[in-house]
């Protein structure tokens, strides 16, 4: 057997581009090494490693300082593992909040705990459809608690295969299939995310930075919709709070987010490969199916003694005009209440709930969310006959 040194020298041949026939050894064994010793490049490894470590530490610190200097702060990422952690906290008689980001930002868990005598579990998710979570809770034979469900019509009836549905389905699936390794990773990630500002999985990753490059596109290129930048923080109970910069009247961040909501809430044009009429029929059928599914889930939940209340949270400005035009109350909201027979709280029906202003048109500021929750509690108690 040749020594490892001679073997290594043999392998350090000049690279040739073309037409080298594979050696007999390579033909037989699929490649070197045969004597179970990989060649180790002879370079000053210790020196190189020290320099690499120093560069990586310096670059990471510089990136962290830069991110903080442009307004980012440490907060937890809302991923499916954090959601699963909260889902695991649901007890048979829990009060559970489901739905979209309005239920996430606008409800204060401390106030609800004071008013409802139970600390709610926050399962709402940003930009998501509530149905998969509702179905999951309805199918959970152990659960017979109370659900507070937010309705943003466009999200609530989002058909299967769209991002709002996929986001929730992914989280529900993870809660059923989470591996011990994923669970441990979440526990390890939380302390890091609570102290490092650049750990923003939906905003400061390489992929997101590349997406922000101002490169012109072909006319019909399918460009992903722009999502709002960082404007809230999240704690381990998944309580979201708007940051001060966003709540500050007239702030640049506030204006930017307002202009992002409008295209996000505007219905996209139908795909070019489906006739407009067929697409309309398909969407109509999907929405009808959703009403049916929701009614069935609510019935199942109530049969076990569970309760549910639907809530329409405040929104304002141009976004309210857009939502009122595209998804008026008499459409989806009234239909959900009618089909399910469940109580509903539409914020505009109550003067004490309708006087709030959403700084970026869609969510309440952290301070207002506390007051809003306090005022919402009596309505919840009444609707839920508590």
């Amino acid at each position, binding site marked *: 057997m040749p020594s490892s040194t001679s073997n290594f020298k043999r*392998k350090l*041949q000049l*690279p*040739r*581009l*073309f*037409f*080298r026939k*594979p050696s007999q050894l390579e*033909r037989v*064994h*699929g*490649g*070197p*090494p045969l004597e*179970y*010793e*990989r060649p*180790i*490049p*002879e*370079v000053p*490894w*210790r020196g*190189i*490693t020290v*320099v*690499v470590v120093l*560069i*990586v530490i310096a*670059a*990471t610190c510089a*990136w962290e300082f830069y991110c903080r200097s442009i307004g980012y702060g440490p907060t937890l990422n809302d991923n499916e593992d954090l959601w699963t952690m909260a889902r695991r906290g649901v007890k048979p008689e829990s009060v559970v909040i489901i739905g979209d980001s309005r239920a996430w930002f606008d409800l204060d868990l401390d106030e609800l705990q004071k008013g409802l005598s139970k600390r709610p579990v926050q399962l709402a998710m940003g930009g998501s459809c509530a149905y998969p979570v509702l179905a999951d809770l309805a199918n959970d034979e152990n659960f017979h608690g109370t659900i507070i469900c937010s309705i943003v019509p466009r999200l609530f009836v989002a058909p299967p295969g769209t991002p709002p549905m996929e986001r929730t389905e992914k989280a529900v699936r993870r809660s059923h299939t989470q*591996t*011990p*390794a*994923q669970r*441990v*990773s979440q526990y*390890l*990630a939380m302390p890091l995310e609570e102290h490092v500002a*650049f*750990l*923003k*999985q939906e905003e*400061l*990753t*390489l992929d997101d930075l*590349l*997406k922000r*490059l101002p*490169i*012109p*596109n*072909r006319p019909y*290129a*399918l460009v992903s919709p722009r999502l709002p930048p960082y404007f809230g923080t999240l704690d381990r109970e998944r309580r979201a709070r708007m940051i001060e910069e966003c709540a500050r009247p007239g702030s640049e961040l506030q204006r930017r987010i307002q202009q992002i909501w409008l295209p996000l809430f505007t219905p996209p044009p139908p*795909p*070019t490969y*489906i006739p407009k009429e067929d697409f309309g029929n398909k969407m109509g059928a999907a929405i009808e199916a959703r009403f049916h599914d929701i009614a069935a889930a609510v019935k199942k939940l109530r049969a076990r003694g569970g309760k549910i209340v639907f809530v329409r949270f405040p929104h304002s400005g141009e976004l309210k005009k857009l939502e009122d035009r595209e998804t008026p109350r008499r459409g989806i909201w009234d239909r959900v209440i009618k089909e399910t027979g469940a109580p509903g709280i539409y914020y505009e029906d109550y003067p004490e709930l309708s006087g709030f202003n959403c700084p970026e048109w869609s969510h309440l500021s952290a301070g207002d969310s506390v007051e809003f929750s306090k005022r919402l509690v009596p309505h919840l108690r009444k609707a839920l006959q508590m």
Partner: protein
Amino acid sequence: MLFNSLTFVVFFVVVVTAYWSIRSWNARKNLLVGASYIFYGAWNPPFAALLFSTTAMDFWLGRQIAKAEGRHSRRVWLVGSVCMNLSMLGFFKYGNFLLQNFQWLLARIGIIYQPPHLDILLPVGISFYTFHSLSYTLDIYRGVLKPTKSLRDFILAVSFFPQLVAGPIVRAGDFLPQLVRPSSLRAGQFLWGLLLMTLGLFEKIVLADTMLSGSADRIFSYAGPLVALDSWLGVMAFAGQIFFDFAGYSTCAIGAALCLGFHLKDNFRFPYAAIGFSDFWRRWHISLSTFLRDYLYIPLGGNQVRPVRAATNLVIVMFLGGLWHGAAWTFVVWGLLHGSYLVVERVVRALFENKDWANNLATGLFAGFATYAAVCIAWVFFRASDFTVAARMLHGMFGGHAHGDAIVTTREMLQIVLVTAGMILVHWTLRDSNIETAVMRLPRWIVTTAWALMACAIILTQGSSNAFIYFQF
């Protein structure tokens, strides 16, 4: 657990520190067995029992093969091992697929049969560890390996965590000899292992997941007709994604093993610089292609039979190779396409190998380009969720949708083209060399900068990436 997860980082640091702190060789091996089972059990603890039972059975069967006198009884024990391994693989991986096809066949002759739905969870990496274990009994039967006396060593050979769930398929005969003598900690080897792990993670997280997978997913899942440019970009994106994903895992595995003092063979050798399909399979997933060659193609007769028979054998081997990747007919078509490529190549070689023009630079470049294009066409079946998607993609690639949609953004185009061009350039530059040689020849500052940039890019992606594609196999 995934290599690209915080759990693995902590796990690896703890294992490596404990491993090199222990003096006793036996204690080190015990530690690695424990760590490997924790690594595997971190997905689904009950499946660790399945892994153990397969391993223990093959250990016992290996001894029976060695003890047996006479070719017939040796063969009986081997058949027992092959049946045990393949039936387990068949049940977990192909159970529902077989039932669905059985139902379809009955329906063709007018019998309506509703099979029970088997809610089978696929144990991660079962295709890999089954082959790790099977290579042991096969090599004992072939007389190229003596059975080990230590069950613990065999357990470690099968379950060694760097290569356990997504390869390379390390044969027991290649690993067991490394368990005889303790390895010593060498700084160069350890740090080179760390660099390889960084390179592997960079390939996976940055190149595969960040630069390519989004475009490939979007294009393959687009339900409308696409123009030729967008269709080709989608396939090129997937060609790059699957290479960086799988080669990235293999590189991580090799690096992690080196950090622990073990040497695993290369699983990829710059495959997109292949000239011809036999060359491609000498460079792509080498551990699988050599496994199929040694344990299937050669026993079927290899090249020592008539050309028609040899060609049939090739197609059979590639058919099974395709099926190994997944329980779907699209994988079978992928395998059969590669089988037919190999047969056509043999014919072309036989006809033109001795011509002068066949060995010049231009022909080589053309053959290399044609190989890449044909491999890309085969990838369509590998990636497509069904034949409708595959047909739509192929139709688009060959100009069938002249007025189709053009959905790819300029940024995505740039990412696909730049990463693919860079990948092919590196593959052609290093096709007759290896990465160790390249590192030796590069100036130190380039090695240092490249390592630092890869590490920074990994941190910047924040590990927000997907599971390795080959885990599902």
